[in-house]
């Protein structure tokens, strides 16, 4: 090929990759964690993915080559690929191309996002996405701001409606933090949103945990919720119940 004729190499900041089972979409998943996130959620368990510079530059080709090794396994095991973060839509071109290439391999694809940057996802990206794991962090704008520090609720809701209109399946995720996101009214608003959308296949209520605390220590950062206890089973049951009442499938 003549010099200059090669297409520009598309690369992105990749924090790490992992394989997981049943927690990042259906079945066994190859999960790519991209580096960089515009939000600073108080409960974030991966502060090591906040900055693009904390990732390594990887080309789409490199990642696809790695994923291809797992293709058969995840397919046989009923899974696929999940692009997560950080916030994958902070790098929409890289994410879009990665999803497209995985889709072309016949893999089930999932996008794990807050939706805050949903406007950056073009239709081609969403065409290559079989499932969006949409992290709706709060039901009220002021709570959203308190949780994320930097974000606004409206873009996520806009993105959710767009997905519903397109017919893209969604799993709505809600991180339950005692004292922060557990108010009955807060949860009710999220449940109302979820119930009003077509294409919500399930709601995942994720109990807050402190397993990421050590990462804050390693980074020399204070963990804002160091003293917050995980929700007790009763609280978890109540919140899940609020979603179930709206006729939603909850896990």
């Amino acid at each position: 090929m003549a010099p200059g004729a090669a297409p520009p190499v598309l690369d992105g900041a990749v924090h790490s990759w992992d394989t997981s089972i049943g927690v990042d979409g259906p079945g066994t998943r190859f999960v790519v964690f991209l580096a960089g996130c515009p939000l600073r959620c108080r409960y974030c368990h991966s502060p090591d993915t906040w900055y693009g510079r904390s990732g390594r530059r990887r080309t789409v080709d490199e990642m696809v080559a790695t994923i291809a090794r797992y293709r058969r396994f995840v397919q046989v095991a009923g899974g696929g690929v999940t692009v997560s973060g950080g916030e994958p839509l902070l790098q929409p071109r890289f994410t879009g191309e990665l999803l497209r290439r995985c889709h072309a391999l016949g893999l089930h694809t999932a996008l794990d996002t807050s939706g805050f940057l949903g406007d950056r996802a073009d239709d081609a990206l969403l065409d290559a996405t079989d499932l969006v794991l949409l992290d709706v962090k709060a039901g009220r704008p002021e709570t959203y701001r308190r949780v994320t520090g930097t974000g606004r609720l409206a873009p996520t809701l806009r993105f959710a409606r767009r997905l519903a209109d397109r017919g893209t399946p969604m799993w709505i995720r809600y991180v339950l933090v005692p004292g922060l996101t557990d108010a009955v009214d807060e949860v009710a608003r999220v449940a109302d949103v979820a119930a009003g959308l077509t294409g919500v296949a399930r709601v995942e209520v994720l109990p807050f945990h402190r397993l990421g605390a050590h990462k804050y220590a390693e980074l020399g950062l204070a963990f804002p919720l160091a003293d917050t206890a995980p929700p007790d089973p009763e609280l978890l049951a109540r919140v899940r119940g609020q979603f179930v009442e709206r006729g939603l499938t909850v896990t």
Partner: protein
Amino acid sequence: MNGNQRTVDPWRDFRDGPWRETIDVADFVHRNHEPYLGDASFLTGPTERTLAVWDRLRALFPEERRRGVYDIDAATPSTITAHAPGYVDRERELIVGLQTDAPLRRAIMPAGGLRMVETALRAYGREPDRRVHEIFTRYRRTHNDAVFDAYPEDVLAARRSHIVTGLPDAYGRGRIIGDYRRVALYGVDRLIEERRAHKAALDGRRSTDDVIRDREELAEQIRALGELKEMAAGYGFDISRPAATGQQAIQWLYFGYLAATKEQNGAAMSLGRTAGFVDVYLRRDIVEGRLDETGAQELVDDFVIKLRIIRFLRTPEYDQLFSGDPTWVTESLGGMGADGRPLVTRTTFRYLQTLYNLGPAPEPNLTVLWSPRLPDGFKRFCAQVSLDTSAIQYENDELIRPAYDDDTAIACCVSAMRVGRDMQFFGARVNLAKALLYAINGGRDELTGEQVAPPTPPVGGETLDHDEVLAAYDRTLDWLAQTYVDALNVIHHQHDRYAYERLEMALHDHPVRRFMATGVAGLSVAVDSLSAIRYGRVKVLRDETGLAVDYAVEGEFPTYGNDDDRADEIAVWLVETFAAKLRRQRAYRDAELTMSVLTITSNVVYGRHTGNTPDGRRAGEPFAPGANPMNGRDTHGLVAAALSVAKLPYDAARDGISLTGTVTPDGLGHTREERITNLAGVLDGYADAGGFHLNVNVLDRATLLDAMAHPERYPQLTVRVSGYAVNFVRLTPEQQRDVVSRTFHGSL
């Protein structure tokens, strides 16, 4: 028992085939088994009778756990007929027979080694019997004595320094599976008749060493079969004829197994592949109206109760090495038939159901031969049982069947053999990590400084040179292979002479195919060390005698267990290289050399005896079990680790490759149904990728920590470690910490 049954044709309604004319249980199973394609909904819970029998035993377990043993008959060297019949609950038991005259009373088997017996007796506060001592020192030699008479000096040195270890030179070798089904299908008289014919056929041959040995062994086998009949008669059963009902089939089969455990204190006393066979009888009983589902499950439950109380007298050191009190009563379940029909029956489900009816337990060691082609209902039930009990292990039927056949069973943890057609000379394992240190140190032991391997120039310089280390390692492995097989040849020659498995071998074809099953430990440590030397910079720290005692690693290096070919190729190279070196050795009785990558729980003890390694592991730190990546170094999850392990070629390690994975329930999905689906999916994926063996633990770290603090709350907590399930609360604190520190593949 029932006089009427004497007139009943025991083979009524069975489909004919060559099995009628020749001893061929596999053919019988093929022609008569009926695959069950449904789910677990037909299963029944325990009856009051079952629970009453089990409770009677359970009441004895706390005392046994506290004292280490419940009771010992120290005065009666065990034989098939040495002990009077024993019962757990004579009124209620459906399947009878104990190793001695009372439950949990352990027998002594001095023919394997008197020292082991006497050390164990003293450890448990009992005085060795003087008459037994006199017999086995003055009149009768033991296997243990005979081995040490014949060991050459370099084997003794290698053994002392723990580079070759766990050898069955002080007790029974085990890992031989008699085809106990033959007792039920043919009755003992027919089996004796067949042995006589084999022996007569040898009369025409010249009396060379081999022929003399074969004749003597056949004579011993015939004698053992006679004793088996006598033992059964003591319980009121005439097993000279074939079994005529399901209850009889289980009883006959169990008598065969029981007799083997009366005669041999084998390291692993595995059962074989019995469920599909038993199912033929239970199904016929149900058709004949003799039995309903509850009754069928009761028989299986009662049988499994008996298998759970198989006991051997061993030293506390032995138990420490292997964690608890293992017997490896391995039963192989499921798998596919060569004709493409699954070998899953309702009785396969019933065996697994015992883990609910009687609660989880490490024994019998229930082993599922997994294929992605197995019926969905069975796959889901297996996954469910794993989730609920962590008590079953999986081996890849798609590797085993082509390499052996579809009537193959696992002995111990991962050792496949065609039932009744193959046997093996169990060879424990060598320490590949220590061997690397010997290579660097010119054959000197890194802990003692002793010259164990022949002196070679130590690897010099401040920084280890990869090519130089590899050349030295190659020489060390040559020496190790030779010394190791030398040791095994001595052991098995003497075991055949002094502690021959008369009954188990009577239940094999003649002639039998023999394997010599070697093994390796410390694979991941050796591989990561070589990777560090190759991809990083490893500086050597030497003591005043020049012995390399520690290493400083600079730079990053790929580690085994992350599906990184750079590291995984080293693992493949090491497995293939050492296997090839072993195969070049001449084995006793021309056995085929095979190799396993398996440690069970001895990875802890191997680690304790191994110095600092170039991968950064500290001296004394446990190795990873089996073929596992080193604890904490697999950073891309269970699937990546599994794919690394799956690269190890089964052809080079035909005695099995073991991987233990622990996942938290949350790490498999949110709901029970999802977790079942996902675990079955992972098993499909791993089998499809060519992985051989997978132990699955579904446990929370918190549960284990709580069990360490409050063992009394977890009497039945079972965890799987490298091919074997153990009762967690019976592990030493060191082993418990090792299990807890193993990578938990839970997602955050």
